[in-house]
Each structure stands twice: as structure tokens, then as C-alpha cells.
């Protein structure tokens, strides 16, 4: 399985890449020792969002499905965690069970929605439109659940004010629970992210991943090579959307709050902007670019949220016009091309 970490579907494959990645991880692990807890918490908050970006990269970049409903599943994950956790109680591994159950709810919903979309042969632009509509519908629905009659068990949905009252995640550990807050939460999310990233790399470089990119390139040809492309796309949709759900759970655990504004516009457009800007067809680019944008977005939001949103829009338009494959992917490709060209000039005889 380890030999699938590298392959044709990932950009960084060489020794240099893995050394850099390890260094980056070491810095990330040491980060809490040289920063104040506020920054650690803030960075953990950013990391929560990366999962949904990786999920979208898998669906859109590798399989060609532009899903506009990452925040739909983010919402299901977040609200799901809240509802289950409030009813179940956090003790005795309840919080961790709520995480798993909420991600499962998101995955099951993705299987249902995906079945109708994919087996109904909805693709291309229409896939984006339908998923976008579904997302807005959920946001509108939750917005009007302010009244006391809108509750699931003990959990009040609370409409546009947002749901609260859930407890943060805790790791069951030999009889007592370790609360995952502050630095502990940061490490938890970091480990989860590293594992997710590596597993996704293995997935896209496997035989399964080969079929995914084949479907992206030419669905009919892929089918005529004997692949049931609907099955492959559905599995991809479930994995990618469940990652959106995971982001929602982590976000909810981080802030003990979730509201419909995390689902509707402009939130729904954000994952698309991050991944398009970074380069949807590569997991590493999506990860790095998303992190960069989240930091940048927050830095500007401090001065003006409107300005930050406008800049995001400009960035998306600029990326689409200037570097349709994404800025990170395009710059890496440009570097590689320049290096090969230089090598070709130096050793023309070898090239022949």
C-alpha cells in the first residue's frame, strides 16, 4: 500500500517532496511549543476546513464532479454532531461516538443524494446547479427553525441564531476521557489530517484512482473499458462528502456552535474558491492552497469582511482566467517545465 503514496495522480512524488513534507510536519508538531494558545486554537480552526477541501479535490479534481454541496454535508456533520452529542451526552466516549455517527449521517445522505444524481446521469454543469440548490434549501430550512417546536430530542435547532450547547470532543482513554480542547484538539486534528491526506494519496494512485481520472477525462471511454462508472463516482461522492461532514463535526466541536450561515451563501462558494485557486487536480496543492487562503482570508477579515469576500471573488475570477488548473498546480508545472527545458538545452544529445 505504501508504494501507492507516490504515483501519476499526485504532483509531489520525489525524495525532495517527502523531505519537505516531513519538515513541514515537524514544524507543525512543534508549533504549540513556540506559539501562544490563541494562535494554536486559531490554526486548529483552519485545519478543520481542510478536510472538505480535500474531499472536493477528490470529487471535482479527480473525478470531474463539481459538487456545490460541501457545506450541505458540513452542516449535516455539524448539526448531526450537535444533535447526537446533546442527546447522548459527552461522557463515556459519547462525543467520539457522536463524531463517528455524524460523519456516517453525512455519508449516508451523500449516498442517497449521489445515487439519484449519478444514477440519474446528471453531470457537468447540472451537477453543480442541483447540488447548489440542495445546499441552499438546507440553509433556508434551518434558518426558519428558531421556534421551540424545532428540536430533535433535547437538542434545539435554534434557526438563524445557530445551535449551541454541545460539548467538545473527548478521546476515551482507559476509563477516563481526555478533553480535546486547545492544544490537544490541535494535535487531534493534525493527526486526522495527516492520516486522511495519506489515505487519499493511496486512493488516487491506486487502480481505483486510475478509473477516477479516466472518468474525468472521458466517461464514455471509461465505461467502454468495462467500468461501471456510476459506481465509482458514487463511492467518490460519498467519500468526498463525508469529509465535508467531518469538517463540520470538527468545526462544531471547536466552537461549540453552528448556524445556517455556515451552509448557505457565501459559505457554500468557499470550498470551490479554495480548491479552484489551489489546483483541484492535486491533493497537496488543494491542502496547501486552502490553508494559505484561510490564513489570508482571516487576516483581511479583521479589517473588513466585505473586502475579504470581494478579494475571494477576484481571486476566483483571476484563477479561472489566468491559471485554469489552479495557481499552485500551474506554478509547480511551470517550474518542472522550465527545469526540463534547461536540462534539454544542457544535454541535447541525451534527449534525442
Amino acid at each position: 500500500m505504501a508504494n501507492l503514496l507516490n504515483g501519476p495522480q499526485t504532483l509531489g512524488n520525489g525524495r525532495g517532496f517527502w523531505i519537505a513534507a516531513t519538515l513541514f510536519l515537524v514544524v507543525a508538531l512543534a508549533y504549540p511549543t513556540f506559539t501562544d494558545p490563541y494562535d494554536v486554537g486559531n490554526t486548529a480552526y483552519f485545519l478543520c476546513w481542510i478536510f472538505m477541501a480535500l474531499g472536493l479535490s477528490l470529487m471535482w479534481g479527480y473525478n470531474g464532479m463539481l459538487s456545490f454541496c460541501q457545506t450541505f454535508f458540513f452542516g449535516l456533520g455539524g448539526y448531526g454532531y450537535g444533535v447526537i452529542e446533546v442527546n447522548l451526552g459527552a461522557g463515556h466516549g459519547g462525543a467520539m461516538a457522536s463524531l463517528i455517527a455524524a460523519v456516517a449521517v453525512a455519508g449516508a445522505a451523500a449516498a442517497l443524494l449521489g445515487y439519484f444524481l449519478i444514477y440519474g446521469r446528471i453531470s457537468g454543469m447540472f451537477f453543480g446547479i442541483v447540488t447548489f440548490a440542495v445546499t441552499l434549501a438546507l440553509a433556508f430550512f434551518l434558518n426558519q427553525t428558531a421556534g421551540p417546536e424545532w428540536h430533535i430530542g433535547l437538542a434545539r435547532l435554534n434557526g438563524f441564531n445557530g445551535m449551541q450547547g454541545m460539548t467538545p470532543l473527548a478521546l476515551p482513554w482507559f476509563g477516563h476521557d481526555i478533553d480535546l480542547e486547545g492544544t490537544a484538539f490541535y494535535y487531534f486534528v493534525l493527526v486526522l489530517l495527516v492520516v486522511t491526506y495519506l489515505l487519499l494519496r493511496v486512493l488516487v494512485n491506486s487502480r481505483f484512482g486510475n478509473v477516477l481520472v479516466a472518468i474525468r477525462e472521458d466517461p464514455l471511454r471509461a465505461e467502454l473499458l468495462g467500468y461501471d462508472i456510476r459506481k465509482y463516482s458514487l463511492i467518490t461522492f460519498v467519500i468526498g462528502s463525508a469529509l465535508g461532514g467531518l469538517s463540520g463535526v470538527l468545526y462544531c466541536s471547536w466552537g461549540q456552535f453552528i448556524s445556517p450561515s455556515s451552509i448557505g451563501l457565501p459559505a457554500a462558494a468557499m470550498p470551490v474558491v479554495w480548491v479552484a485557486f489551489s489546483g483541484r487536480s492535486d491533493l497537496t496543492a488543494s491542502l496547501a492552497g486552502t490553508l494559505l487562503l484561510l490564513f489570508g482570508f482571516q487576516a483581511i477579515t479583521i479589517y473588513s469582511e466585505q473586502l475579504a469576500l470581494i478579494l475571494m471573488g477576484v481571486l476566483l475570477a483571476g484563477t479561472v482566467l489566468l491559471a485554469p488548473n489552479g495557481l499552485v498546480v500551474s506554478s509547480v508545472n511551470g517550474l518542472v517545465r522550465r527545469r526540463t527545458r534547461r536540462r534539454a538545452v544542457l544535454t541535447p544529445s541525451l534527449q534525442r
Partner: protein
Amino acid sequence: MGTLLDVRGISKSFGGLFAVAEVDLAIGEREIHCLIGPNGAGKSTLFKLIIGTYAPSAGTVLFGGADVTRLPAFSRVARGMSIKMQTPSVFRALPVRQNLRIALQHHVQPHQALGEEERLIALLGLASDADKPAGELSHGQQQWLEIGMALALHPRLLLLDEPTAGLSPDETFRTGQLIQRLNAEGATVLVVEHDMTFVRQIATSVTVLHLGRVFARGTIEEIIAHPGVEEIYLGAAHDA
């Protein structure tokens, strides 16, 4: 020898217009059969009905004795059909090597895939371009690559829709040799073709389609001697 493909009374209409009407076509095991006819005769539509990307308005398709009329295309491929479509359709952004690997991995064990991949690359004469994106290949090379992908499935029935379109006479001849070699190895081949020299090179039997119906069938000599065949080709040329 038994019948591998048996198409019975198949029809396909688009809004009342029959592109293919009540066509019967039986292809024996290890036969090389050519389908000819002027443009619009329904050849490509018939191919799509056989492989399953179109559902027929009427009629049945039997493959290896089993009724596959209601099976989706990928299941028919899994049962041993394979197709090269009229316009080259390869995975343009992916390297040549990966194009073949995607075709191979479905049924070849991982440890055999690499050897098989190299064998196909050599067979197709694409060794020096194996790591290029398939979209950068010449038109002829893309045609060959797609034939290679169709071969990688080790099909019992190979459907080739205009395999020599856009190829030089030399490439056309080599394509003919390749088809004959595959046939000798056990594949049954059904080819849509316009080039009569090529048809003469490979085919043992020919079916002529005209306006969606079978116009004539027989050996290549019988078809060439058939007075009506030249007529429909010329007629089509006059109409055009």
C-alpha cells in the same frame, strides 16, 4: 464454428426516423466481418446498439448465446466485447502508458500488467512517446492507441469503427496486418470501413448497409460484383 454475435431484427428510431431498421447480423466465431455502406447508412448506430450505448427500439442482441439486449455497455465489455469508436477517444491529458494501464488493470493481475503494458507499447510502436500525454500524439497514433486499449481487454469480439480513418496507406496496411494477427490469435472482428482495398485485405465476409437496412451480404468478391452496391455508393455521392 458457432455464432458469437447474433443480432436479430434490431431497429433504432430517432423521433420516427429509423437509423437502423430490422437488421439481422450473425457473426461466427473467429470471423473477420466488414460492415460497409455510404454515409448515414446506420453503421455507427448499429455499432452502438451492439455495444450498448444505445438502447434498441426493437430487436435483440445475443452474444455468446446469451441475450445481452438489456445489459449496460460496461457489462457487455466485461463479457468480452471491445470497441474502438469512430472518432479517436483516448484519455487526452493522461500519459500513453496510463491509458493502456487503465484498459489493462480491469482484468490483468497487477504483477502481469507491467509486462503486458510494455508488450502493447512495443506492438503499437509508441515506445518513444509512452510518457507523453495521449492528446499530444498524432491523429494516427491516437487511433492506434485506442485500438491498443481495445486490444488490452483481450476481447472475444472486437468492434472497430473506421480504424484506418486518417491513416497513411502504409499505416492502413499495418493496421490490417494487426487485425489479421489478432484474428489468428482467436479474436472475432467486426469492422466498419470505407477503404475497399483495406476491406479486401482483411475481410472474409461483408455486409452492406443502406438507409438503415441490410442491402447485400456475401464475400468481398460477391459484393464487388453486386451491381447495386456501386449504385448506392455513387448515388450517395451524387446526392451529396
